[in-house]
């Protein structure tokens, strides 16, 4: 199907909304829109960060997922206790592939699961004693940990345990930072509030720890990478580019990051923010308290990388600016070869995205570099400021959906018939069974990195591998294929 007009897209939204009861229809209509680049403020056309309706299939996570899974979890030399029943920690253990360097169980603990495994008696009598016992045990078993965080699960808030008091007590006896995080799953409407709570915990319990400590020698070229979780090695691919430019990366938040890096972050000259949604809070705080400026950047696809490198360099002197040009020059042959190889195979293909907090807008550039077009995008847990930034990136008359429900997403796909869908594991098998090529864009489908020039090569290869895979014409059983059109697309079936 060719590109849809504004009217067709609007009609499609109306048609999809038809099945809902009236009140649900009114509510959901606010979350679906046709993109109009003229609109300055997203709040005029889309509502976001609202509670999902009971009864619809939402794809969102919880505050605990936002704090333990996203922000705190990747800090490799701290131990993160999933405080509460065993499931939350166990089923999310190591699933996000935040790569790190270190010996797991000795000086790094990224893929391990620590939990207080709440039982009935802990719910009835409170789990404070158990928690302090756990922390003593942790100290005996893993003496090289640099600190502990307590990530609350729902029951902690429900029974009202005073984890702050336990944390303060433990911090005294262990002489290490112990951070209580009030990220009970029921808080907020999605994982987004978990990010905020985690940011606030960093602000209150970690960031000021080394304010008096002058032993860290800073240089005029110190930068940090914020909001890069090193999925499949993303942060490493970004870091090499910055270092090639002559900058010194003093902290990674939080992929492959350490507690000391976090504590030294206020000593940087510039905070580079990749995932705006999950770490803008702490960036704003550092700008206010320590005067460290921050800027958003985008390391997906050569066009955006070059743009970002130049913007970053503009903060520094001419040497760095010249270096930025050299870096772009140095990789040009490499990425041009990637484009030359894959662009003819991917040209004109249409993509629908539905991811988390930054990718629905950040990846658009990378697809465009390969000659592909993003025809629909949306956030699980984005806020208005995310949509403000998205409107400009997306083409006119494309679909934008916020917290899309399972039903809506399926219907949109049936009608828009994209050539590729990028979303998460929960959507993957539905669409693959519908015969549509699919990539998981949360975990890069067990591939990666996708950031930086090195990542772009992998990105292009993966997209080609998925899209041009011969399996898609074999999804329908041979005896079910109609005589006249043996090669008919099965997408609409």
């Amino acid at each position, binding site marked *: 199907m060719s590109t849809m007009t504004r009217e067709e897209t609007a009609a499609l939204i109306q048609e999809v909304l038809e099945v809902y009861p009236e009140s649900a229809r009114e509510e959901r209509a606010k979350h679906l829109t046709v993109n109009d680049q003229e609109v*300055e*403020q997203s*709040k005029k056309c889309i509502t976001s*960060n609202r509670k999902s309706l009971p009864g619809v299939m939402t794809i969102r996570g919880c505050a605990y997922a936002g704090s333990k899974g996203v922000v705190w979890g990747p800090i490799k030399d701290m131990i993160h206790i999933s405080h509460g029943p065993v499931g939350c920690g166990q089923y999310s253990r190591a699933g996000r592939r935040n790569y790190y360097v270190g010996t797991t169980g000795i000086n790094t603990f990224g893929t391990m699961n620590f939990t207080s495994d709440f039982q009935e008696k802990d719910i009835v009598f409170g789990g404070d004693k158990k928690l302090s016992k756990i922390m003593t045990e942790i100290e005996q078993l893993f003496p090289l940990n640099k600190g502990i965080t307590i990530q609350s699960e729902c029951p902690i808030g429900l029974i009202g345990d005073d984890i702050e008091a336990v944390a303060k007590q433990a911090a005294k006896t262990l002489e290490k930072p112990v951070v209580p995080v009030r990220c009970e799953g029921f808080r907020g409407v999605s994982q987004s509030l978990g990010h905020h709570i985690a940011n606030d915990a960093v602000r209150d319990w970690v960031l000021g720890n080394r304010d008096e400590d002058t032993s860290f020698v800073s240089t005029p070229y110190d930068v940090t990478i914020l909001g890069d979780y090193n999925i499949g090695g993303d942060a490493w691919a970004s870091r090499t580019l910055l270092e090639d430019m002559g900058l010194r990366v003093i902290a990674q938040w939080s992929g492959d990051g350490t507690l000391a890096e976090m504590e030294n972050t206020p000593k940087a000259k510039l905070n580079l923010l990749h995932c705006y949604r999950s770490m803008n*809070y702490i960036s*704003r705080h550092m*700008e*206010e308290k320590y005067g460290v400026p921050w*800027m958003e950047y985008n390391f997906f696809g050569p066009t955006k990388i070059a743009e970002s490198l130049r913007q970053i360099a503009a903060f520094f002197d001419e040497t760095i600016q010249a270096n930025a040009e050299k870096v772009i020059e140095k990789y040009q042959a490499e990425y041009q070869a990637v484009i030359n190889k894959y662009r003819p195979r991917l040209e004109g293909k249409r993509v629908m995205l539905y991811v988390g907090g930054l990718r629905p807008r950040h990846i658009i550039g990378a697809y465009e570099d390969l000659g592909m077009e993003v025809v629909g995008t949306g956030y699980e847990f984005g*806020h*208005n*400021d995310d949509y*403000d930034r998205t409107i400009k990136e997306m083409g006119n008359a494309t679909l934008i959906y916020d917290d899309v429900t399972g039903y809506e997403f399926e219907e949109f796909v049936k009608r828009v018939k994209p050539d590729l869908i990028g979303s998460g594991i929960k959507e993957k098998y539905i669409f693959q069974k519908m015969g549509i090529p699919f990539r998981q864009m949360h975990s890069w489908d067990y591939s990666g990195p996708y950031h930086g020039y090195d990542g772009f090569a992998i990105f292009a290869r993966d997209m080609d591998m998925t899209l041009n895979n011969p399996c898609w014409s074999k999804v329908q059983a041979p005896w079910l294929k109609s005589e006249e059109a043996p090669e008919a697309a099965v997408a609409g079936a």
Partner: protein
Amino acid sequence: MPSVMIRVKENGALLFYIAKKDQEDEIAEVETDTEESWGGEVLLTDGSRYYVDPITPRPSFPTTLRFKRV
């Protein structure tokens, strides 16, 4: 009385940010904007107005202030 963080944007304009509402708007006009003090009624680019008692000396941005809706 929203708590508002005001920071200087890349283009030099002041950005009015209400965390609770994820609202980011540029400040179009400020009643008092001198070397000594800053504040009074503030007009945003989206047309809404807020008020803060003028602050002396002029604060250095970014800073967080409590505004009143006008």
